[in-house]
């Protein structure tokens, strides 16, 4: 599935809920399916800067596609990174770099986050895209 399709899938899923409590609960649930980063990588090196809670992300290139794993010490952040990883993981670096992130507004995620959380969300997207950029540069140089 293309990034765009996954994004639309998420928009549909979140549209099912009437209020913020249900959206939050769903986001927390999604956090439970997050592919977890190995404990030994929970170090400053893999920490996303700009989040008030701790969020670690690691990327690997598997068969030309980037596979992300992550974790957080806060449940809501874990839900947010899980959504982002569902969208961006298992795609080629170029597709990740080019993907737009309008879906965030469409699922109403930002409206439901405090400014600090919303900043954290932007930092997470930036971090995932930076990984993609780094791998793309590496591929181009090979």
């Amino acid at each position, binding site marked *: 599935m293309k990034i765009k399709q996954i994004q639309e899938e998420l928009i549909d899923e979140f549209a099912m809920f009437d209020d913020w409590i249900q959206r*939050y609960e769903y986001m*927390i649930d999604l956090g439970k399916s997050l592919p977890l980063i190995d404990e030994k990588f929970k170090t400053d090196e893999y920490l996303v800067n700009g989040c*008030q*809670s701790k969020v670690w992300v690691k990327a690997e290139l598997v068969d030309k596609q980037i596979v992300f794993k992550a974790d957080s010490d*806060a*449940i*809501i*952040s874990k839900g947010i990174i899980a959504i982002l990883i569902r969208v961006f993981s298992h795609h080629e670096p170029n597709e990740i770099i080019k993907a737009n992130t309008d879906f965030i507004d469409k699922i109403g995620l930002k409206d439901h986050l*405090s400014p600090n959380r919303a900043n954290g969300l932007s930092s997470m997207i930036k971090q995932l895209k930076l990984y993609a950029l780094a791998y793309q540069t590496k591929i181009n140089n090979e």
Partner: protein
Amino acid sequence: MKKYIHTNIDQIRNDFPILKRKVNGQNLIYFDNAATSQTPQIVIDSITDYYSKYNSNIHRGVHFLSQEATDAYEKSRVKFQKHFNADNSYEIIFTSGTTHSINLVANGFKKILKKNDEIIISQLEHHSNIVPWQMLCEETGAKIKVIPIDNNGELIIDKFENLLNSKTKLVFVNHVSNALGIVNPIKHIIKKAHEFNAIVLVDGAQATPHMKIDVVDLDVDFYVTSTHKICGPTGVGILYGKEKWLNKIPPFLGGGEMIDQVTFEKSTYAGLPNKFEAGTPNISGVIASGIGIDYLNSIGIEEIYKYENELLEYATKKLLLIKDLKIYGFSTKKTSVISFNVGNIHPYDIGSILDKFGIATRTGQLCAQPIMDYFKIPGTIRVSFSFYNTKEEIDEFIKSLHKAILMLS
């Protein structure tokens, strides 16, 4: 006539327009009073009044408006002198806030401190009462010693007394911990420090909203606070200093107002308090702060303490009924601040959900990382009550907290 809060609570709440706000579709419940208190209409009006009627620069013009503004500004100084029971009005310096006041004093000791002199601070300090002294030590070669806390979050006074010696030059401690709300025995600390001729600065930002401060009785050398925590606007701080110390330390900022004579060879400084108030000060803010302290005194600090203490006891009792809830900071002398965590739930998660219910709390390290390190936690949720809060709001908060815990477990 003083107001009895219980019977006047509706009228008091009416004085604060912000309390009528809806947040996320819910009635605002403002429990972040330790960060800043809300502003009564009378204070807001005084700012409009200043800009509508007598906005002009102070201490300079001979014209009518300048006189009026200067009078109102200086009247405010006298109000704070009386409020803190200082001997002289010129011992009250207006700054931009507690942080500015602390930096002003720290800067003042750059030339006085020598290598290997010692500065004592406490484990309970806010970052603003740690960093300026670290900077001072870097420049002077002085050393920082730290008063430790016990498991309840109280300062270990025996350890403090052991730290004192002939090399101790300065002692800095907060009157009330911003993270835990514990009232420190500053009178005793000041007395002991003075036995070694050490100078004491007390950070009173968390104490002034809740208790009467008498700088003469305390015999404190410097006492600092911000007026936005006592019903004033943001951007105004108070530095009380004993005359002899204010005369001894040099000005912090150079500029207009703080000079006596200026030639290109040398300038001489003005006397107190102008020496420390370079440039155009926050005139409307200082005047409004004076109105704020009048408002607070119209209710009465003792009455406020009593009422807030009831809220503290009520909320503490209710919180302790929640499974796995841990309160940090236990003491018989506390202001209306409760710092807590629930099980392993991250404080940000609880704070975010409470926000959705319209409840403003503070979450995180609370600018007091050394305390969080001591308790080995990423932070806490802090609720802090003011005299305009009610038990009904606490009930609502407890209900929402239960819902948040359910969502996050």
